[in-house]
């Protein structure tokens, strides 16, 4: 009960901050805050796959590209309402995720990492090939460009939906099946968990989250979908966000999203780092240090502090 109360309190606090922030922020910073929400959606999606099901993917930038192009193309050619493109890209990337998930059933460990990496490098090439419809390297633009307030509201609404959706999915039977696959595929299969169904499902859901994040990503960059903004670095950044936060934690994903979303901005104002591509150096250093020093990420560190705190209270002489 106490845990639930704490969770509700944190949720209320985050919601209050999110609702109050746009009043204080300039348009530019609203866009920045929207990016944090977008990374959150993508990182939660990746976390379902890596942190809860134990399947690695270095290819989620590719799913973001598919989602982003869905939004841009639908809006450009059919003038579809921008909100309406979000469920559409959710559905399309869900199917794409299932399609990638089926061959992924036969791959594990490093082989899956290799295949998804190759996927992430290949997909941004396709708009260049069919440039007649996708605008080639210039990209394609949505019919209307949303305001910063609009994108802020929609992104954080999506982040909230992603949190609730992931929580509902992971707390019940499906989540248990995912975790059992992560801990031991053999044990999961012998307890009657269907590996093909749940592994493919994890891929589909995870990709769908990334797809929605990709749609929002296009909207926050003035409605432009371009191949190079979905390059392999984006995939790596999401993976790093998930790893820094700690795999297997929905709250940790928020830390990861803050890290990935705000680091470029913060490092720009630090004199030495801000010049050139210093933020990549910080990105790399932080993820390496976190992986070596904190195997379970920031979330793991918090859990460790929490349990030590509790055991200190329990063993203390004044504990009641």
């Amino acid at each position: 009960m106490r845990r639930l109360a704490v969770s509700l309190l944190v949720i209320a606090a985050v919601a209050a901050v999110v609702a109050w922030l746009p009043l204080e922020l300039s348009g530019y910073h609203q866009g920045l805050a929207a990016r944090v929400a977008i990374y959150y959606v993508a990182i939660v999606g990746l976390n379902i796959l890596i942190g809860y099901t134990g399947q690695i993917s270095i290819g989620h930038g590719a799913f973001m590209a598919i989602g982003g192009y869905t939004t841009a193309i639908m809006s450009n050619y059919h003038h579809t309402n921008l909100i309406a493109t979000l469920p559409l890209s959710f559905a399309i990337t869900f199917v794409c995720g299932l399609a990638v998930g089926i061959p992924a059933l036969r791959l594990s460990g490093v082989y899956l990492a290799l295949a998804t990496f190759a996927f992430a490098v290949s997909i941004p090439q396709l708009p260049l090939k069919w440039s007649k419809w996708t605008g080639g390297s210039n990209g394609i633009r949505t019919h209307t460009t949303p305001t910063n307030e609009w994108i802020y509201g929609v992104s954080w609404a999506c982040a909230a939906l992603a949190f609730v959706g992931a929580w509902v999915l992971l707390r019940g039977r499906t989540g248990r099946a995912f975790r059992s696959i992560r801990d031991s595929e053999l044990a999961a299969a012998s307890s009657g968990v269907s590996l093909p169904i749940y592994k493919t499902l994890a891929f589909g859901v995870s990709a769908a989250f990334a797809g929605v994040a990709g749609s929002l990503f296009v909207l926050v960059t003035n409605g432009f979908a371009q191949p190079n903004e979905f390059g392999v670095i984006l995939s790596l950044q999401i993976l790093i966000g998930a790893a820094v936060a700690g795999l297997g934690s929905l709250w940790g994903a928020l830390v990861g999203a803050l890290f990935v979303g705000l680091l470029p901005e913060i490092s720009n104002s630090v004199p030495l780092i801000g010049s050139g591509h210093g933020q990549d150096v910080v990105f790399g250093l932080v993820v390496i240090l976190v992986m070596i020093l904190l195997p379970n990420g920031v979330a793991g560190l918090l859990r460790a502090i929490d349990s030590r705190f509790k055991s200190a209270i329990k063993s203390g002489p004044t504990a009641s």
Partner: protein
Amino acid sequence: MLGFTRKTKVSTGASLPVLLGLVAACIFLAVGSLLSDIFAQQTVAGLAQGAIFGSLALALVLIYRATEVINFAQGELAMATTYIAYQLTLWGLTYWLAFFLTLVISFVLGVVVYGLLIRPVQHRSVIALVIITVGLFILIDGLVTWKWGADIKFMAAPFGNEVYHAGGVSFARQDIGVLVVSILSVIALWLLFQFTKLGLAMRAAALRPAAASLVGVRVDWMLAIGWGLAAVLGAVAGLMTEPSQFLTPTMMQAILLYAFAAAVLGGLESPAGAVVGGLAIGVFLNLVGQYVGFASSELRLPIAFAVLLVVLLLKPTGLFGRRQVRRV
């Protein structure tokens, strides 16, 4: 991880059908080259590119055999060492002096990367190791862009720009040079592994770490040297890429994917497979690009991805790989 799984060999090396297929492919290439000048030109250019893919693939395989890690930063490491060579030539060194000095530097770099980053986490999950090399990828990318900027740099052409004519066929001297240097470095490595005590110790450390340490092999150092040699091969790949692609921080990213495809095609555990796989991918991509109208240059990467996926799904052990049975 190592302690709980034991590998048992079931079958070894390349099977007869695979060897026959390779011979058939060679005959096909030879006959095609005799019949058509363009075919011959594309084949030679493909072999030159393939030799680069092969060296980088071999670097990946070396590391995979020694430490069961796929080093996603291998291409970026190669790119960074190429920039070091560039800096050395800026300081007035001749190309080939800079070349060999760079090889020494990259060896040290590889050893340091292993000691600082990989060794502390080696017992952890595959996911953790992959994420560390991904972090290294971004770190190197950032460092190089920070130091040298993102715009294209040029080095002196090591082999000149002459073109040889044989019959109606013209070969770029550069292609020949790239092919020769890459193959020589692969042969040197093979000699090291096959005929020196150090090579024997390294093979022992990679295959049976526990047993090797019992007979006095310093396993950690052997693995570190393996990482160093892989970095040297990567540096060769990077330096041989530079004449055709020039220096940019992203120059090795596509080549890394081709090297992945080559390593997987060769079986991921087989050094010979990596080299053959690299040459095969290089020639295949060039010939497909020449003769299949649909496969324009934008589709080179997706085609390599398709090759990788098809191999993984249909024959995960590749051409030269050994099937492994893992007891849990």
